[in-house]
């Protein structure tokens, strides 16, 4: 049958700008309205309609008799898809499907390995899932409303070690459409937020307790030509100003600024799959990609308090002390004549024993800084 060609879609229907890479820009709130208009309420509501009501609705919708419906139900039941191969943990003996042939080969290979890798990442991902799957809040005021949008962001870690720059480590956060940008910002865990500044070789006992997160609160998101600055605290400065001024001197389009705490995700115009930008601590830059937007589903985590929700976190191995290889390192020294490498990591005890004598005098010449391990978020 000839279909109507040239159906012009609303500009807020997401389409590919580059196939399988990123979409064109669209307004998120308008996109949500389009979906809600296209669907019946019971399709996306949390409650299950009882089977009787469902039958009545079907009869009306399809314009058929109840007996026809019964016939259809019998004919199209899941029983008709039953397979003879009951044991789902093994591949059937003589597979005809190419998928199964490949899987069988893979299974035989795995069984031939003398030692299988214990997948730490997967164990971690399972743990994260356990926390949030199907969670319903005790207080119904915290229930995520029906028809709410869930946005999924991948926040990539900046490359810390040259050796691991080929692995694109990231964490995945789910946020609700009605939440503000500041909530996403607070939820991003980055090790540079925990850094303690200062050189403490002369006074190792007086390491202050403040961390960079408390001191340097400025941050911004950069989406589609607009810088969203965090202006909640008086210490926050507009760190995007330098970039904007620089851009004015070159041939770029004018960039705009807006407040992070006043913007919620519904108000944004975004491209899905397109790399955006988040900066904090002045120069710690992260690439942020909006990977997915969808309507909330009955089986999702429905507790508003748990959002932004971390669904995937890259598990970094903690770096141990270079002396004992047992404890997590807390100190890093440079220009140290006694240490084998520059810089070198030490745990608390090894650091004291190595660099200070009985009378707590400094031995040798070195510079010591407090070290926060990237694996602290595990």
């Amino acid at each position: 049958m000839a279909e109507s060609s040239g159906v012009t879609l609303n500009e807020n229907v997401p389409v590919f700008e580059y196939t399988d890479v990123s979409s064109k820009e669209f307004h998120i709130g308008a996109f949500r309205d389009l979906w809600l208009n296209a669907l019946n309420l019971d399709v996306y509501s949390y409650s299950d309609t009882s089977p009787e009501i469902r039958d009545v609705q079907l009869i009306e919708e399809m314009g058929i008799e109840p007996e026809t419906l019964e016939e259809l139900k019998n004919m199209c039941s899941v029983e008709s898809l039953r397979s003879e191969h009951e044991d789902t943990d093994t591949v059937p003996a003589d597979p005809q499907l190419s998928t199964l042939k490949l899987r069988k080969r893979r299974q035989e290979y795995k069984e031939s390995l003398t030692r299988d890798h214990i997948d730490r990442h997967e164990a971690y991902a399972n743990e994260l899932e356990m926390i949030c799957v199907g969670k319903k809040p005790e207080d119904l005021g915290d229930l995520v409303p029906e028809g709410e949008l869930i946005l999924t962001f991948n926040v990539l870690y900046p490359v810390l070690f040259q050796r691991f720059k080929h692995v694109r480590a990231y964490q995945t956060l789910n946020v609700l459409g009605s939440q503000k940008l500041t909530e996403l910002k607070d939820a991003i865990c980055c090790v540079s937020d925990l850094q303690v500044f200062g050189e403490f070789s002369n006074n190792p006992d007086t390491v202050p307790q403040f961390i960079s997160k408390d001191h340097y609160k400025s941050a911004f998101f950069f989406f589609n030509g607009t810088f969203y600055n965090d202006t909640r605290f008086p210490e926050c400065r507009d760190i995007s100003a330098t970039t904007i001024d620089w851009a004015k001197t070159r041939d770029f389009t004018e960039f705009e600024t807006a407040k992070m705490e006043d913007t919620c995700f519904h108000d944004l115009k975004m491209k899905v799959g397109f790399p955006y930008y988040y900066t904090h601590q002045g120069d710690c830059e992260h690439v942020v990609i909006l990977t997915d937007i969808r309507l909330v589903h009955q089986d999702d985590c429905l507790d508003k308090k748990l959002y932004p929700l971390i669904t995937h976190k890259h598990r970094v191995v903690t770096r141990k002390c270079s002396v004992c290889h047992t404890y997590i390192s807390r100190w890093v020294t440079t220009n140290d004549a006694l240490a084998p490498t520059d810089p070198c990591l030490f745990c608390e005890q090894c650091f004291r024993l190595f660099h200070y004598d009985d009378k707590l005098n400094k031995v040798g010449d070195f510079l010591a800084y407090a070290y926060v391990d990237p694996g602290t978020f595990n």
Partner: protein
Amino acid sequence: MIISASLTLRCLVAVEKACEHYWKPFKSDCEEFLGCFQQTESVRYEEFSVIWREMDFSSVFSGNQSHHEKKSFTRLTFTIVCNYLLPPYSFQIRVGALYMLYGLYNKQLVWPKEKIRVALKDWFHIQQFITEAKTCQHLDVVYIFYRLLSDKAFNFTAMPKKLTFESSDRVQHDVNEDFRARRDKVAELASVEMLEEIANVHRHYERMKNSLLPPSAGVTLQNLGGAVQKCTLEYKQWQEQIAGARSKDATKKDANQKSESSDRADMLAAIKSKSYGQLTKESRSRRHRRIEMVTTGSGTEFLFHHKKKPPSLRARTYQTLGNPGESEQTQQWLLSVMEEDKNALKRRDFKRFNWSETE
């Protein structure tokens, strides 16, 4: 210790990439299935379930896999089958895809169940498809769809799959020409709107002509709209006639056609070998250029389609800006490794699993 870190760092990424290796075999399984369904020339669910049981398609999820692998694979199956649910595939193929989605959704081994992603731009096509099925009274199609809706099997999304900006995810879906819906181009051309348009323009033209020139014989046809309509009607009737005659003469013609086609093939092959085997004669002006021999051998390489990965950002940067010098190779982390831990220096030499090994 650090080596195991770099290996496990890639483990989760490896699971995702492992699922991509199932793309090709699963797609070929789907095409086989839909091919069988197409041959039944019916859209009934009973026919579908017979094929499903015969091919034992439910077992596609079986095997000793981790929870994460099962989820990734289930998502992959939905992504692949959803492609067949949308235009430009024919109505029958789309019905087959809908039934397959129903089967895969109910037979998956993951809990909580993986949902079928539907993008907003595709939702309109699906609604059109279901309306078509309703008007043709294909009740099983409509029932299956509403059953999936009420089971909350769909996730209503912006794009058909998650876009993570990984170059490995860009797999092209080539449309299977056998499953493509055949467009009735003649009917499209002579649709009601088009005929009205033609009639309007024609009337306008006639009016203008009559006001400017004496009514002599014009260059245009009288009653153009009617003529077009008559032609299309004749064409349709002829088409139906041929279709009827073809099914009768199918067996008779087969034998004749085969001998005809083989003669023709021989002739073509002879012509090709003659033209390509010869050296191309140079013109005088180009004598300084080398004589090149064009062979037909290069054609066969394209039969074995290599999946070409697009060059990574790193490779493209090096191409445009030049490769920076490699930094010195001292591995400082090794200095603090324990003496006994000689494994750190040895390269793991186990045999890796070859995904694309052909048997």
